[in-house]
């Protein structure tokens, strides 16, 4: 069980996350929604141990993750928001690097990399440098890197960006399957439909604070509308239809 206990993060006294608390249980797929600047990335960085909270703690099975970060990270598969990879390494070399850093047994690592590359349709490109990969290919490399050591916890930050339709569909089913396997999945996204389809629970952030947290099925019941409308009502004070009309008006202006 992964718990965020009263997490607070301030950057030079500017609050980025304020008193964030939630629990992620085995088999649960928790979606995290929020507009830009709502504290999603800061939350993810605290959950992965990349950032130390100003106050509060992240607990895994009751222990503060910072007590033994390497052991915690061995159980963690993380897909960051941006596909930042070393462009001069080939796809295979990058995955081999990740496998070595995770201390995976050499033979099993090679076999697993090959199988996953095949399943993600990257096997033919495994010896091409990452610099020549498209955005979607890089994203698939990141997904393989997160999956290859069969971790217990998954943190996905916008994992679908750049993926083609087939890969995105496979990934959505994969998230379901991971949940069914009893893994803990934290899923950050802007795409409401995806969160609605793949997540069992949802957490909505605004200005660094949780403004709603419940199962995906319950949130519209509480507010009485679809998740999209609920989200817009909760976090955005923007009339989207009106904004679109204003844009067209500006374009047509003399």
């Amino acid at each position, binding site marked *: 069980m992964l718990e965020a206990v009263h997490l607070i993060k301030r950057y030079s006294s500017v609050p980025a996350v304020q008193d964030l608390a939630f629990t992620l249980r085995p088999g649960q797929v928790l979606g995290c929604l929020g507009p830009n600047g709502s504290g999603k990335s800061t939350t993810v960085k605290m959950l992965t141990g990349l950032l130390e909270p100003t106050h509060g703690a992240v607990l895994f099975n009751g222990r503060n993750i910072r007590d033994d970060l390497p052991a915690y*990270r061995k159980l963690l598969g993380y897909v960051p928001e941006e596909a*930042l990879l070393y462009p*001069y390494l080939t796809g295979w070399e990058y995955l081999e690097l990740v496998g070595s850093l995770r201390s995976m047994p050499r033979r099993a690592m090679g076999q697993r990399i090959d199988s996953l590359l095949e399943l993600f349709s990257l096997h033919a490109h495994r010896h091409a440098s990452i610099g020549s990969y498209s955005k979607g290919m890089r994203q698939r490399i990141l997904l393989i890197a997160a999956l290859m050591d069969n971790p217990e916890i998954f943190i996905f930050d916008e994992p679908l960006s750049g993926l083609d339709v087939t890969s995105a569909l496979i990934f959505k089913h994969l998230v379901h399957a991971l949940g069914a396997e009893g893994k803990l999945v934290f899923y950050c996204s802007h795409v409401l439909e995806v969160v609605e389809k793949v997540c069992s629970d949802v957490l909505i952030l605004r200005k660094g604070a949780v403004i709603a947290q419940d199962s995906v099925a319950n949130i519209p019941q509480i507010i009485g509308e679809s998740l999209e409308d609920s989200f817009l009502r909760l976090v955005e004070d923007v009339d989207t239809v009106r904004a679109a009309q204003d844009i067209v008006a500006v374009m047509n202006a003399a």
Partner: protein
Amino acid sequence: MSVDLSRGIGRRWRAYRECPFARLVRLFTARIFRGSGDNDAEGLDLSIGLVLTLLALPGGFVSVILFPKYGTLLQWMRGVVNADVIATALPDEYFFIVLSMAVTGAIAVWRWDSIFPDRRDYLNLVPLPISSRTILLANFVGVMFLAVLVAVDVNAASSILLPLAVGSTQDTFVFFARFAAVHALSVVLASIFAFFAVFSVLGIFMAILPRPAFMRISPFLRTLIVVSLVTLLSTSFAVPLMLKQFSGVPRFGVSWLPPVWFLGMGMSLLGKADPHLTALGRIALPALGSAIVFAACVYSVGYRKHFVRIPELTNAVVSSDGPRWLWLRRLNELVMRDPPQRGCSRFVWKTLFRSEPHRLLLAGVGGLGLVLASQALFGAFAGGTIKSGHLSAEILSVPLILFFFVIGGLRLAFEIPVDLRANWIFRLLLDWKRHDCQAMARKLILISVAPGLLLIALPAYCWLGGWWAGILHTLVVGVWSILLTDAVLIRFRKMPFTCSLPLFQQHSIVILLLCAMGFFFFAVLMPEFEAWALPEPLRLIGLIPVAAIAWYIPHRIRQNALEIERALIFEEVPTRGFEVLSIAE
């Protein structure tokens, strides 16, 4: 009326600045400086001002050092009176020409990838209503602007300071002005020649080879050019002497050196060139014109061949672990037992072989080592010591010089970051407290030294000086390489290439001085001692206390380091003068 005129000119200039062509020129000039990648992708934040300042430093620094040489008091103390000051300045003039060519040529190599419009430019500019001819011309104007700017910047300080130093012995301002003008002209034209010569060499390969073949050989070609530039720089010690020794006689080899042409041009303008130097000086301007025209030709061919066809091409460069590198992989796996260490070391090897800045840095440092080692070797040949079977200090110094530069070059390369934003994987997966980067770096350096020592130096010295001398020399070089490696890795606690690098640290000058002293001890004193000791090997025992001290100091520093001082870092934060305690928070 003059106000109206200046307003009119101002208006026209502003209008011109905003026209598409001028905007494109500005875009390309900025892009060539900043690179075509994302900001900070290279890990080094080099602004245009900083780059220009760094480029101007060597010329200014060397000029200041030369002031005492031309001081009248010092000359009088040396017994030099009524000396021909221009003849005295010839070696310095040659040095500045070579320096300006080497620095400008290196800039052309370094920025080569950004000189040509790439896929990003294609995708951004071609859909706009601009003809591809305009893009071509704007880029070429940008390149010309860069060449002139770099040439002027590199030589600005020396163009004022060297004439000041040389002219300090003369009474007339005319002498200063004339010398300054000729010096500035020679070095700036030499710089521009070097820039376009490098441009032409790379451009011709780009024009004649298919893109995949060019992309494959480009790194090797650039490495070769860097080594050639370093070699050219090293000719500054020998060529002026040759010019003096063989005055009036046709100089085989020297005539082919472009810096001599520009020196000849300068000396002719000052009226101090002998007929042969005057003849060589006449080559300078046609050579410069040819270089620019040739560069323009290969540029337009390369442009047609590569830029226009970008949509049809792919940037994919397929590589694989072929049998070529299998031995390195095996050696690496043999030495690195721990899986994360093994993974990290493979990453380090691949970065060294594939990352352009690291490869160019190693080529530069290695090239300097090669030049100095070959000078020592030629010295040994000239002295006839090779034939006699006696191992002279010069011949013994060859592996020590090379290993000094290999070890120092690798240590320096470890500091240069590569795409810092991608280091998240190391931040995430390495154990900051327990991962021993120092041990890994030590093994990596020694792996790169060991094959050369055992497979080349040992047989060569056994052949030259006999079994006993060969084995002893190999042992001494091996032990000192290990000690040097330990010394350069004192307080090293980074995963190579993943930590930010402040460009100038408070102790940078101290490090430079230590490097110079280390070289003197490692590659000059040590071979001298060995040459004296090898005929009676018991004398080598004298090295043991020195080696013990050299081993003890880094060992002690490591033992005394606190746990926090050993922890892995990913950001090199400069020491601050004061700390804010933030007690109020």
